[in-house]
């Protein structure tokens, strides 16, 4: 039986008295682009952080390619690449130095740092600005650099929290195309969280709607739209959480 790229079962997470996740479960197949959609505070980032080995679950289980994210955190880190929603790069390094630094840390087991760097340079689209210090970059440029860093290593699982946040239309479009291409050509699995329903609909093979720490619906965008007789995922979400009337 094929091991899923991600397996989450009954995942719970408490921050003191606040319960951020109330027992969520889902699976992601290898090579799939999976979207986690929900409002602020729904539990998207917490889920992503647990899978990225940053947080430990209060209860439940999370595995990446069959490896427990708590017990085998080191192995999991070797397979993933995580892009936080709010992320920065080292301001005193140039963009190229930053990519080179990251490539060297990922270049293990015969993987080539130069190839990673070459891909990173291409994905960033920053051209000559890569030789400038990161402190001189705009928010959009920094985001492109970070995305290039996350994708150049061709991870088995890329965990991207709001990947296109802060990017203009052209850059966001280019990034989406890159994600699709990497998924198709390299078999990279993607777990993406986003507020942008259009983005998710365009990108994801399957999505899960999350609200109040629970997954309220899951399926392909087409299935969900059909199930809720909705024109888009935005309507699906509003109907799924009962804020707007509609068929199920």
């Amino acid at each position, binding site marked *: 039986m094929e091991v899923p790229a991600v397996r989450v079962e009954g995942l719970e997470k408490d*921050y003191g008295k606040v319960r951020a996740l109330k027992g969520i479960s889902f699976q992601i197949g290898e090579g799939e682009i999976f979207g986690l959609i929900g409002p602020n505070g729904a539990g998207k980032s917490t889920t992503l*952080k647990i899978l*990225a*080995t*940053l*947080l*430990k679950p209060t209860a439940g289980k999370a595995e990446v390619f069959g490896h427990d994210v708590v017990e085998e955190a*080191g192995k999991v*880190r*070797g397979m*993933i*690449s*995580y*892009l*936080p929603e*709010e*992320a*920065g*790069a*080292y*301001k*005193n*390094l140039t963009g190229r*130095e930053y990519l080179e*630094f*990251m490539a*060297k*840390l*990922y270049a*293990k087991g015969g993987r080539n740092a130069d190839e990673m760097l070459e891909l990173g340079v291409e994905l960033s689209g920053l051209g000559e600005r890569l030789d400038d*210090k990161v402190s001189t970059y705009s928010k959009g440029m920094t985001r492109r650099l*970070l995305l290039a*860093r996350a994708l150049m290593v061709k991870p088995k699982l890329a965990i991207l929290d709001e990947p296109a946040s802060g990017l203009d239309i052209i850059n966001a479009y280019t990034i989406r195309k890159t994600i699709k291409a990497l998924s198709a050509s390299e078999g990279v699995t993607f777990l993406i969280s986003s507020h942008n329903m259009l983005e998710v609909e365009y990108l994801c093979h399957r999505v899960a709607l999350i609200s109040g720490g629970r997954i309220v619906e899951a399926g392909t965008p087409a299935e969900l739209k059909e199930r809720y007789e909705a024109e888009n995922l935005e309507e699906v979400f509003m109907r799924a959480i009962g804020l707007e009337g509609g068929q199920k």
Partner: protein
Amino acid sequence: MSDFWVLFAKELKNLLRDKKLIFGLVVVPLIIYPALGKGMGIGIEKARGETHVAIANFDSGDYGSLLIKALNSSPNVTVTLVEAGDVAAALERASNLKQNVLVVIPPGFSESIAENRSAIVYVYGIFSSLGTGMKESVSEGRINAIIQALSRGIAEIKVRKLGFSEPSALLSPIQARSLSYVRGRLVNVSPSAVSAILASQSVTLPIVVFLMVTLTAQIAAGAIASEKENKTLETLLTLPVKRTTIVASKIGGTAVMGLIAALTYTFGMRSYIGSSFGGSNVSLGDLGIRITPQGILLFGVVVFLTVAFALSLAMLLAIFSEDVQSANTVVSSVILPLAFPSFILMYTDLSSLPKAAAYALLSDPFTHPIVAYQWMLAGEYARIAWSIGYLSAAALALLYLTARAFSGEKILTAKMGWGRRRR
């Protein structure tokens, strides 16, 4: 290249390109300190320059003239005679002539001496501005020395007239010759000269250690807290690298900066103290104190472990801080009280303290470089070894706690805004 070296190189590159850090690490100790010292040195040199002395002679006898002659023939003294009806007028004239000192020879000065009574001569330091007063002080000392020499000369002549062939034996029947007995060895150096060289050592070292420890602690705290502030921490913690390697590389990078700080501050302080207070003519070698390579090595280990302790403590505190500002606040409020007791050792040594106080001081790791330095000079290497044992245990315990804290999720979830008001 191993993960450690990749991370270490990044840390160093990041730190060395921080302009504020380089200012504190290089510009302050290597340029500002020596410049301050030079400035003070120039002030002292100036004070030691020519003394301009005005003389108001209200005496008509020979001894008054003799005093003027003595002052006139002394090196570094320029004499100007002022004509005035009284002392106040003489002072005003001397001040207008920008003299440093006014010497007033009162009426009856010669008569008193001739009749074997004490005569008084008045020496007024003239302060034209309220600066350091160094020039006036040096001038007064110089004039007093001339007056004393003259006074002694007159006394000797008088004693000779009484028929004594050796007047100095009569005038100074007891003469003291100062020597020192330093740790079982007799040296032909006065205790004040020995004290001066030991004091210059005991002043410099605590200051250098204090600066080095506080500076590297701030750098270490900044290295962790800036990862939070610049939102690079989450990415760093998900890289395929052991957390202990990340901590080690940060400590390594910061320790190099600490080493640079130690070197630049030692050089800067030496240059400051050397140029402002003048060097001593006596060396440690003259006192029979030999610093062996073994002693230097042991002392180096003590300094290294103290820095390691400070770095680990700073990192541990920074893990629970929200940003660089909070980290700096909490590190200062913990490290400074721990570093201050070492200044006690500037004025006293452990053996002269009550036992409880000595042990209390030794329980503070930051006092160890200073006592270890004294032990190194004394050749008491077993005591330094004991110090190394204690510091190793303290540094390792803290390193363990830091690595533990770094491996958990507290590093991400703890958001204590130390010293900052919550909105």
